């Protein structure tokens, strides 16, 4: 039953994702992609469980490696998206950002 319940969540989230993303204008495709990429770093939550649950030593190692890579994904992804998005400006809103 648990598996069915999770599959339901999967199905609904995929449809929701389609709805959310199909309206994004082409201008924002790159930041959207890197922003979505940062979200895929959610696997960090799973990695924390593996690294800290006091399992077998090898499992802890795997978890720690997963934490490193997932954190790179999360921190790097959000920061680079923020950097890109702050460059998008409307006309006459003053200059700034990276010249």
């Amino acid at each position: 039953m648990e598996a069915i319940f999770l599959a339901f969540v999967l199905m609904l989230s995929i449809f929701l994702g389609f709805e959310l993303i199909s309206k994004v204008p082409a201008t924002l495709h790159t930041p959207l992609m890197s922003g979505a990429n940062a979200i895929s770093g959610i696997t960090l939550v799973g990695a924390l469980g593996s690294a800290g649950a006091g399992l077998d030593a090898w499992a802890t190692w795997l978890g720690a490696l997963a934490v490193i890579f997932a954190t790179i994904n999360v921190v790097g992804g959000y920061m680079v998206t923020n950097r890109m998005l702050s460059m998008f400006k409307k006309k006459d809103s003053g200059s700034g950002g990276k010249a």
Partner: protein
Amino acid sequence: MSAAFINATYILSAALFIFGLKQLSSPATAVRGNLISAVAMFIAVLVTLLSREILEYQWIVAAMVVGGIVGAVAAQKVEMTGMPEMVALFNGSGGIASLFVGWAALYNTGNTTFTIITVLLSVLIGGMTFSGSIIAWGKLSEVMTSSAIVFGAQRIVNAALLAVLVICGVLFAMDPSLTSPYFYAVIVLSLIFGVMAVIPVGGADMPVVISLLNSYSGLAAAAAGFAINNIILIVAGSLVGAAGIILTNIMCKAMNRSLANVLFSGFGAVKTATKVEGEVKPIVADDAYLILEAAASVTFVPGYGMAVAQAQHVVRELGELLEANGAEVTYAIHPVAGRMPGHMNVLLAEANVPYDQLVEMDDINPRISNVDVAVVIGANDVVNPAAREDENSPIYGMPIINVDQARTVFVLKRSMASGFSGVDNPLFFGENTRMLFGDAKESLSSVVAEFKN
């Protein structure tokens, strides 16, 4: 903290992810959207850290510090032109993390066969995402050749690889011991499969691959979520998976090709396009200046060549001078211009071009005949009229920006070499086309200098 409380907090976190993604769909709210999504991530990580299941913190803290520093430094240092490579690497890192999470889940007690299958899926998708992303990075940064690598028995090899992978997976699922050689075989084969999936894709098709890998990194996280029974991984992972699929689809449509065609066929293998002949009309910067000075509307059409020449800043400078001169200036961007979706938009945004001047292909085409001068900078296939007229052309049917219908077209180009697809471009021989040969940045700088005199 109890599991019930943690799961309740995950609901909040999921709602914030959704809200953040929604706000990412408009340039005015996108910065906030990204921050909301980051807050969602922070909340999810925080409650997980406070969970009763986590007994030791030393590894976690060390790993998070290392990962955080690497990610932050990379995000700060990367040049905007290097963004496709960066996104590829971040994708790869998410993929390998999901592979490790799935692997570690084998050490949990009481795994059902269903769990074992989801572990295998997270290893497969995560591994493919990782090795595929590394290859994509190699192609984009030109560490390796960016053209398609195809060989005769490629499909047979891939099919065999997949078959062996499935067999190993089944054998492991029947007897899931921690030391099973089949499990290691699945890991290795997944990595090889990722490599095989990306090598036959050429440089100009990279926007499709990058969005597809983006989708995979989300699906890998969702699979890992099934493996460890964690609902927030499933929700966030599948949102990303869906986002990547949509982008992939948009990119394929913009090239009028099916996903299968992009992934398996190695573009440019057959070239039977009608040979175009004619005379090109070169122009020098002085004359280009005179024409631009008299123009009432100018449209820039950038392509990957603009990124290579780092010409975005001088383009913006020329654009501002033209506006000061009374011309209406727009930047028309083809969906697959550059090496990833939206690549040109980011480069122009970096050069301080306001986003309301960036127009999409479908907006510019109906009014292109009223444009006095269309300036094509380092774009080729996306403005090739053969896509519209020559049924024999390999790019026939691909929607293009119809610059040949503008009153005058300037094409900035290094030499007469054909574009990535190796297709001749009749645009260069057009009645109203003037070729401005040389480095795009230098050519434009000379025009800018003329304006300032």
